[in-house]
């Protein structure tokens, strides 16, 4: 077997089996054990106040408030249809084009209302990037996938270095450095998703939203995406929607649990530090969900 055969896999073996230990600081113990949302001594990137979402006449999310903190991974979990992806996409106005979409309340981003007057949604997305459920690289070369947005945004200086840094940060550089001119669609699924992450961070956003980024990937690629999130945390604020509770437990500092109320409207049930959510949830619905006794 030649070395190129090995490279067709997602990652060198040594990386695949690396197990994350204490390299990420455990969240500080919550001073308040009674389940009230813990006050956090960190700047909030998003301050969501009494937000509710509608699709036409149908309410998708009942009013709720939550803060999303800087340089943390915040996970949104919950059953299908509970509105967690809707909420995630509301954070950078990706829902705007959906017919009938309506939002009430304030989504404050560093104090500015995302849906306020004079807010340009292109500018919003330039600061709040997104990675989607299915890898969606452009039908361009690997290099051009990363370089396209910086070029269009006027970040033309030292473009090669920017591309290399983004690919490094997405833990993809070693696998693709010799074939940057190859089509991105020739990469494996896991590589494509890391390419999409590299593409998103190449424009140096402030926040990265990830909508079930690993759900279309095999377990090994999933692990590498999860490791990646830990490595990105010091520089970005990450919000991830996931169906996979173990994933939330592994990657997230804070976790929000959404569910459906009796009228089948999405509702924020509980939001706290991940450890608290999984070990000592205050709401029985959270406990049922995280222990797999949902329903």
């Amino acid at each position: 077997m030649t070395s190129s055969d090995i490279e067709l896999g997602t990652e060198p073996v040594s990386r695949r089996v690396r197990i994350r230990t204490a390299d990420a600081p455990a969240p500080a113990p919550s001073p308040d054990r009674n389940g009230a949302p813990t006050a956090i001594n960190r700047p909030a990137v998003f301050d969501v106040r009494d937000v509710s979402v509608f699709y036409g006449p149908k309410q998708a999310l009942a009013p709720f408030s939550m803060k999303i903190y800087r340089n943390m991974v915040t996970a949104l979990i919950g059953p299908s249809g509970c509105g967690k992806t809707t909420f995630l996409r509301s954070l950078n106005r990706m829902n705007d084009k959906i017919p009938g979409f309506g939002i009430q309340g304030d989504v404050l981003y560093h104090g500015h209302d995302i849906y306020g007057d004079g807010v340009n949604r292109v500018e919003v997305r330039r600061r709040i990037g997104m990675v989607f459920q299915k890898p969606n690289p452009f039908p361009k070369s690997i290099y051009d996938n990363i370089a396209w947005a910086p070029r269009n945004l006027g970040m033309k200086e030292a473009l090669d270095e920017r591309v290399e840094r983004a690919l490094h940060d997405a833990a993809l550089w070693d696998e693709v450095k010799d074939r940057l001119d190859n089509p991105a669609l020739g990469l494996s699924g896991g590589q494509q998703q890391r390419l999409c992450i590299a593409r998103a961070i190449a424009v140096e956003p402030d926040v990265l939203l990830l909508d079930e980024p690993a759900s279309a990937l095999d377990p090994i690629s999933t692990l590498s995406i999860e490791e990646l999130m830990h490595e990105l945390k010091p520089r970005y604020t990450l919000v991830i929607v996931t169906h996979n509770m173990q994933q939330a437990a592994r990657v997230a500092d804070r976790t929000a649990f959404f569910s459906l109320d009796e009228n089948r409207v999405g509702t924020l049930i509980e939001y706290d530090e991940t450890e608290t959510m999984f070990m000592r949830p205050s709401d029985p619905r959270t406990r049922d969900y995280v222990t797999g006794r949902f329903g």
Partner: protein
Amino acid sequence: MSALSGLDPDAAEPERTSGVPDPTAPLTATGNLRRRLAVSRVLEIAAVAAAVLAVGVFFFVVYAVAERGLGAISFHFLTSDPNLVDVGAGGIAPAIVGSAIIVALATAIAMPLGVLIALFLIEYAGNSTGRVVRLVLDLMNGLPTVVVAFMVYGLIVLGTKTESGYAASIALAIIMLPLIARSSHQVLLLVPGSLREAADALGVSRWRTVVGVILPSALGGIVTATILAAARAAGESAPLIILDSLVIGEVVHINPLHGLAAMPLTVFNYLETGTPAAVSQAWGTALVLMALILAANVGARVFLARNRSRLGL
């Protein structure tokens, strides 16, 4: 307990609805199945025959033109001016050059407009507007070319008092426009929405997304559609006869403000002349025209395939 315990062997045979076969009968065709099989067979044969007929007609035309035209074709035929005295000794260089210029000009007009219309349909038009524009394009596609040519005659030739290559180009552009717009629209529809979302999420403005991601992804299909439309336009004769036929075409001209010789015109004129030498020249010209159009078609398909593999689609 046996699985058969529910069956009473002495029970009377249940009444069967007519058409429901006895389950114990041999498994040969029963009831009207024979008739249904026959109908099915007839339809199958008819469908195959229709396909064979289409292929056959195509090869018959190609063969007939090739058989009669090959004799006229030579390097001299392709590169010389027509000989007005000894028709058989002349060539069709002015017609080849003229056709190329007329079609190139028509393509230069129709392609950008057609692609812009397709972009309008896909990116900007609402549902009802889009439906109206698509309907108009389909109606435009059905316009008789002679009517298009007549309209251009009224607008341009009557105004300038002269027939010209560019008048023909405009008529051909009108004929090509709906073809390019509709096929480009179809190709753009195939660009996955996830690519638009990806580009949106990077904070890149809409038209840059269109130019940088949407169009390149659809480029192969758009170019193919354009080549096919140009190939169709190259063979159109009514617009040329109406708008660009007052030419002798004895030497190569390249100025589209004047009349230009063109291959369909040459075929038409030589056939009208009717002498054996002229008819032979007409067959030769027809063969050249047909070969060029076939080559363009094949070239378009090869381009499309290569483009797809380059993008990794």
